[in-house]
């Protein structure tokens, strides 16, 4: 029976493939620096991973190898980067297995993290156990300082939820002091870790700054009809609308707010606002819409990055928030390796903890493993997404206020 034969062959092939693990030439000098990652190439997380994380990885690998590789002083030469990648299928267990495979089977020199807050948190303990630096970029959590203590090899690049919420509150407080907005805020948030943490931190910060939450609801991930929520938010007559939202909802909220002609003085949406496809979809009508993240589009490094990004990914643009930071985190890794001069993960971790690095998002110096000076609030102005806050960052733009009417 052909099925029997085929099946036997398949099993035999499987065993053979598992048995013949790549031979290890421990004593020979390495010919490449092995980099690995397990990331969502399929499943629900692919939307975020394939805009923010994976392209940044690919651009970096291409850049490094185009420059001849990473300089290792101990060898006196540059070594190219060689990549092993797995698809975690947006499944937590697969992701962990993938990292374990990279660490123990492929014995890669460095592991780049998966996409998303949940997966970075889940990857934390294993990367810690195997002693790999953990460059957690796409993870925003208030527990970051605590986790950085628990896992000294982990580095958190986007700040905490509280930071994000406080930044927004600072921007709003200033506007209120100038008499431009009242104290009422309509707040909605997605019922996912990220949205909830931001909303929780936001509520506390708003309260402390004596703002009043005229409307405050969370909605489940995957909800497609935002109209009832928006109608209620509209009815609250607040000057400020804040949505701690995720990509598909950010799109739906924007589209439906425009439709309802819901035009508060401040219109803020979170993840997805900085996506290139967001601009592509809504064109000029999102003028003045605020969101999370931001960049300094004037910076030459970023302009160059845009070009290289487009070349590598077939013309697509990076998002204006975590994608450039992801690339920057890899620049930090590279510089740390070069300063250490050999593949010594403990020393590299130490260097990242203490060193100061030049990246496409400016100079980065981590404090207690946290990057504290990233863009927290951005705004679309004239077709570009500018960082507004912190105001002391180079390239900080002036706020466009009030948000202009939606264009039809």
């Amino acid at each position: 029976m052909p099925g029997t034969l085929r099946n036997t062959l398949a099993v035999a092939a499987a065993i053979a493939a598992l048995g013949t693990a790549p031979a290890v030439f421990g004593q020979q000098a390495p010919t490449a620096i092995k980099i690995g990652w397990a990331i969502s190439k399929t499943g629900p997380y692919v939307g975020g991973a394939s805009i923010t994380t994976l392209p940044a990885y690919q651009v970096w690998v291409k850049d490094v190898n185009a420059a001849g590789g990473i300089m290792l002083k101990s060898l006196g030469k540059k070594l190219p980067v060689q990549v092993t990648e797995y698809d975690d299928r947006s499944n937590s267990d697969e992701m962990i297995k993938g990292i374990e495979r990279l660490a123990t089977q492929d014995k890669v020199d460095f592991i780049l993290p998966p996409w998303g807050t949940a997966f970075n948190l889940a990857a934390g303990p294993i990367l810690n156990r195997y002693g790999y630096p953990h460059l957690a970029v796409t993870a925003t959590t208030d527990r970051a300082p605590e986790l950085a203590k628990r896992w000294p090899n982990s580095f958190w690049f986007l700040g905490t939820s509280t930071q994000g919420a406080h930044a927004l509150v600072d921007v709003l407080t200033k506007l209120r002091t100038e008499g431009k907005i009242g104290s009422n805020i309509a707040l909605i948030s997605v019922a996912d870790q990220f949205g909830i943490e931001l909303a929780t931190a936001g509520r506390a910060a708003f309260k402390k700054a004596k703002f009043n939450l005229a409307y405050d609801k969370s909605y489940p991930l995957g909800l497609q009809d935002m109209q009832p929520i928006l109608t209620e938010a509209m009815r609250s007559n607040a000057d400020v609308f804040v949505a701690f939202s995720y990509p598909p909802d950010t799109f739906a909220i924007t589209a439906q707010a425009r439709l309802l002609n819901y035009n508060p003085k401040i219109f803020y949406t979170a993840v997805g606002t900085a996506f290139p496809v967001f601009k592509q979809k809504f064109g000029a009508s999102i003028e003045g819409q605020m969101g999370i993240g931001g960049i300094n589009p004037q910076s030459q490094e970023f302009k160059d990055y845009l070009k290289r990004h487009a070349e590598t990914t077939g013309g697509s643009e990076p998002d204006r928030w975590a994608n450039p930071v992801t690339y920057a985190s890899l620049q930090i890794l590279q510089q740390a390796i070069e300063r250490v001069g050999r593949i010594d993960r403990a020393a590299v971790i130490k260097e990242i903890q203490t060193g100061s690095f030049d990246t496409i998002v400016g100079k980065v110096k981590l404090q207690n493993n946290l990057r504290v000076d990233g863009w927290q609030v951005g705004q679309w102005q004239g077709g570009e997404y500018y960082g507004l806050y912190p105001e002391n960052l180079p390239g900080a733009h002036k706020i466009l206020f009030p948000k202009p009417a939606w264009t039809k």
Partner: protein
Amino acid sequence: MLPGLILGGMYALVAMGLTLQYGVARIMNLSYGEFLVAAALATFFLYTGLGVSPLLGLLIAVPAAYVLNWAIYQLLLVPLVRRAKNRDMLEVDSILATFGMLFVVQGLAHVLVGGQYYSYSYLSIPLSILGSTVALNRLIALLFAALIGLALYFALTRTRAGMAIRAVAVDPVSAGLVAIDVRRASAFAFALGGALVAAAGVLVSVFLTLNASMGVVFTTKALIVVIMGGVGNLLGALLAGLVLGLAETAVARLIDPGLTLAANFALFLIVLLWRPTGLFGGAAR
């Protein structure tokens, strides 16, 4: 009220094809949603790349999907139908086979367009009707859903081919006895179901943000609607879709937006507890 109707109309639209595929051809098609997303993404590229309007896209996607699904039925599913001794076996086999198909279609979509979100604006013009504001594109989608649903309903109840299809849905064995070519009727129903899901894909693409991994969301919705309405019952699917849409909107407005999806599933479960074969279902199995 109107937004709820529009949402419900979308659910019904998404589910109509599955009613035919499962109710008549007895194929529990788990890759259903992938075909919807494929049609939606194709529309996106036709519109943004070539400037083909989505409504024109219907004319391309629907016949193409019909032919494709007809071929899939004849090539891939007929062997399963032939070897199945009874309905249970076909159900299990079709679940397994279409589960494989789900991965193939999704994988192809990923290779072709990657995993990013796709979204475009088309006829996103506000209209004020009965005190609520709705988007023209959603209204058009609803109108098309209603048109397609009506056309299908009349086709099924007033034409010979429709009669044959309904007979196969009720009892394939007896249908064979009265000289209905069951295989042909099933292939036709499956292909027509495929064409309908493509139409749904084109229509939802004008107002939803999608990526290549989201097919399963629609498969789920369609399954829930079809089962709640009663397998093979078009009116049941329409009604179930509308009820779910209205409930979702009402819960969001009156109780808590956080419970909308929970309310949807709870409603579905309660209906099944009350009527174990759906709103308009016949005997089980």
